[in-house]
């Protein structure tokens, strides 16, 4: 069963909106009544990641070529693993320093898979957009890894900018494909 373009676009819009909600929840600070950023460990983030993984895995069933099947399966795996580790950390059942790196490393892996996707199928429609979106994810992940090692962290992480750009591209670009 192969889905028409409009249905594929709908899936991308929904996943883009989910990703946007996750990153805004994680990186846009919530100020407490004293005006200080409150430390929050929202469970929305891990559950959102795992919900997204189900959506990405579904693409494996509907994809019409092996590249899409393989890459979407790996995206789903990374989303689920990142969500599970974040859930364990935020529930306090598994506390390790290296877990701070889970989300940024997941962004770098997703971005790399975007670019690998283009290498596997160079003639595919939207190859340039895939590379740009992969670069945004990799850039966001690297900026966040740098921020985690910086003693004075800015209130709003710079990584939020490329990551929001990626989410908006995921919502907007399939519009042109579908219409």
């Amino acid at each position, binding site marked *: 069963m192969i889905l028409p373009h409009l249905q594929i676009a*709908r899936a991308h*819009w*929904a996943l*883009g*909106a989910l990703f*946007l*909600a996750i990153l*805004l*929840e994680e990186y*846009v*600070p*919530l*100020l*407490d*009544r*004293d*005006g*200080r950023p*409150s430390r929050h460990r929202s469970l*929305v983030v891990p559950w959102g990641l795992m919900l997204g993984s189900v959506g990405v895995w579904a693409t494996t069933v509907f994809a019409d070529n092996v590249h899409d099947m393989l890459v979407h399966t790996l995206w789903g795996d990374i989303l689920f693993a990142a969500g599970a580790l974040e859930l364990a950390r935020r529930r306090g059942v598994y506390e390790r320093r290296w877990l701070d790196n889970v989300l940024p490393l997941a962004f770098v892996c997703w971005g790399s898979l975007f670019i690998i996707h283009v290498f596997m199928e160079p003639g595919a429609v939207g190859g340039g957009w895939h590379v740009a979106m992969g670069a945004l994810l990799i850039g966001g992940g690297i900026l966040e890894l740098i921020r985690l090692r910086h003693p004075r962290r800015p*209130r*709003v992480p710079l990584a939020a900018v490329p990551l929001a750009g990626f989410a908006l591209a995921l*919502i*907007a670009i399939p*519009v042109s494909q579908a219409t």
Partner: protein
Amino acid sequence: MAVPTLSRGERRALRSTLVQPRLVVAVLLIVGAVAWASVRGLDGYGLTPIGVCYTLDQPPVLLALVGVWLSFRSRAR
């Protein structure tokens, strides 16, 4: 007449009430969604369950939903 002055903590509390970053982003998203919808237009797919899903699963509507959700999450806890 003495002019009431706010302490540093009070000024900070007032600022956080007025300028909650999440609320700013939420308003930007909703304004962007309205602008996008007015340019692109929205389609209606009826009131059946799948029709409602399709109606909601349009880029401007999704952006607005994220904005509304973020404004809900911007309340200080």
